[in-house]
């Protein structure tokens, strides 16, 4: 359905996209994953015909984006990063306008508007001005706009950016409902987002395609590199020694602690049973165990793991504590990274942490 070959885009001296090649089959949901500025938006804009490529070719539904832009545009529904809405228009009038713009015959426009209003649950705000809507509703209007001509290919640029967890769940559900009939490309810098809906993940970093695989395979490739955060009330020297002695632990590094407790980042090779093993060691030693949880991988980590060779990756992980990688990364992972947890001020009430772990739970489900 979508074919991209040796695509390169240059803005003046900077290469935004470097020699990317991939294909998307009909009915697939592909997630573009990468940090901000990785070239996701540029790639999408080339596919939608908004930008021409510097070199290479891209085609959608058999039409080349440069040679038959109008044909390509007919087959694509596109939701840019900020929904392209006119604040002074009512939802219905806006959708009617987009419908006509996309070439729906006059007689069918009303019917299509009704159908996307229903599909995106916009019934309550149908007559309202878009400028008065909340961000979540505006995003849904953006989605409705992309769906109005029932295109074969849907391209969503960061569809959940800036929404609250409930809205994120709704948008994901919507996208999930669209799969099957439509070929979907969506971009995000949140790993769990693509994990939950995409059938294939394409990782782009620094304009280059780093990996293209199913979420399961990617997870498998990254397994064995999980870190745990553990907070213990006990003598630091003994703790380090005994934790290292647990089977499956590759490395232990100390974080700052407070109120007599110390936090540790534990690098493990297998995730399966190690948490209970660690807990047992702590309890048997007579220390207090305050917290134990996996540290979400930041995208930086993932790129490191995926691109560097095994040894190099391990060295990098040990030389450079996860805390730093997390702090450098501009992207928020769903879970707070070790650095954030460690940086929590002393008087931070414990509810904060519970709150974040609730979000984790919501994201995982």
């Amino acid at each position, binding site marked *: 359905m979508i074919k991209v070959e040796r695509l390169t885009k240059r803005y003046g001296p900077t290469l935004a996209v470097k020699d990317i090649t991939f294909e998307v089959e009909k009915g697939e949901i592909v997630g573009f994953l990468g940090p901000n500025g990785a070239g996701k938006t540029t790639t999408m804009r080339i596919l939608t015909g908004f930008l021409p490529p510097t070199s290479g070719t891209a085609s959608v539904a058999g039409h080349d984006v440069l040679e038959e832009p*109008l044909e390509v545009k007919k087959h694509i529904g596109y939701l840019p990063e900020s929904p392209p809405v006119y604040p002074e228009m009512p939802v219905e009038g806006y959708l009617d306008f987009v419908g006509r713009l996309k070439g729906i015959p006059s007689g069918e426009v009303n019917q299509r508007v009704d159908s996307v209003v229903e599909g995106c649950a916009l019934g309550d705000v149908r007559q309202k001005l878009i400028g008065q809507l909340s961000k979540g509703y505006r995003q849904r209007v953006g989605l409705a706009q992309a769906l109005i001509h029932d295109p074969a290919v849907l391209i969503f640029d960061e569809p959940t950016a800036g929404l609250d967890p409930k809205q994120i769940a709704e948008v994901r559900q919507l996208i999930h409902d669209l799969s099957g009939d439509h070929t979907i490309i969506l971009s995000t810098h949140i790993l769990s987002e693509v994990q939950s809906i995409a059938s294939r993940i394409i990782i782009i970093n620094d304009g280059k395609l780093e990996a293209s695989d199913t979420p399961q395979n990617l997870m498998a490739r990254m397994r064995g590199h999980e870190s745990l955060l553990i907070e213990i009330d006990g003598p630091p020297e003994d703790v380090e020694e005994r934790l290292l002695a647990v089977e499956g632990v590759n490395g232990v590094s100390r974080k700052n602690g407070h109120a007599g407790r110390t936090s540790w980042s534990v690098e493990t090779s297998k995730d399966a049973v190690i948490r209970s093993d660690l807990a047992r060691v702590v309890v048997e030693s007579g220390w207090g165990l305050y917290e134990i949880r996996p540290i979400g991988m930041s995208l930086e980590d993932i790129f490191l793991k995926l691109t560097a060779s095994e040894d190099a990756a391990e060295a990098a992980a040990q030389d450079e504590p996860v805390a730093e990688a997390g702090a450098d990364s501009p992207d928020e992972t769903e879970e707070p990274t070790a650095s954030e947890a460690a940086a929590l001020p002393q008087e931070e009430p414990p509810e904060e942490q519970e709150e974040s772990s609730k979000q984790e739970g919501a994201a995982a489900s």
Partner: protein
Amino acid sequence: MRNVWTIASRELRSYFASPIAYILLAMFSLIFGYFFFSAVAIFVDFASRGQMGMQMPPMNVDQFIIQPTLGNFSIILLFLSPMITMRLFAEEKRSGTIELLLTSPVRDFEIIFGKWLAAVLLFACMLAISMLNLAVIFLLSTPDWRALLVGYLGLLLMGGTFLAIGAFISTLTKNQIVAGALTFGAFLLLWVLDWVNAYSTSTVGKVCQYIAIAPHFEQFSKGVIELKDTVYYLSAIGLGLFLSKRSLESLRWRA
């Protein structure tokens, strides 16, 4: 053509959904009303002097009311048309809706023509208001309606020229104020071009005079369709729209 109308009608609705259209129309009717009033007042003054036995030139409403009133139109256009056109593309670029237009199955030219058409239609609303004023004369006198019609054709062409240039300038920036200021500056330049060189007979002077927008309207206001002037306006509109198209295309390459 359907796409052009889709875009034009949205643009028009947008003008009327915001205060822009109402403010512009209100300002226009005030200023035009004043111009019309002053022309009538002068006419009445002259007429009463004539009745008192003073030597006055032969007078008629065409020459003394309609011609100067229409002639003053270009001043109104100079000030109001930048406000019509400054948002056309600048606003779409700022808010990102340009991405919707450029990823829809419509041609660049349809986008530009549609937006220009909307601006011209708003201008036509102004013309309609001005007609209400002039209708009063028809109640009291019998002016030459054909000459007036030609005058309005000229106004439409002159307005179209201003608006096409304004539309082009609006494609150059994301900032409405910048677009407005540049447009006003350009219009002012095109306005003064002819009086700076009014008495010059050099080639440069003649060229400047030909380029200036307002002088080409003179014949129209007298009810004469001059080929030279018609060609001037049509080609200026064409140039404005062509430059807008080029500018919109370059948006893709520069982005």
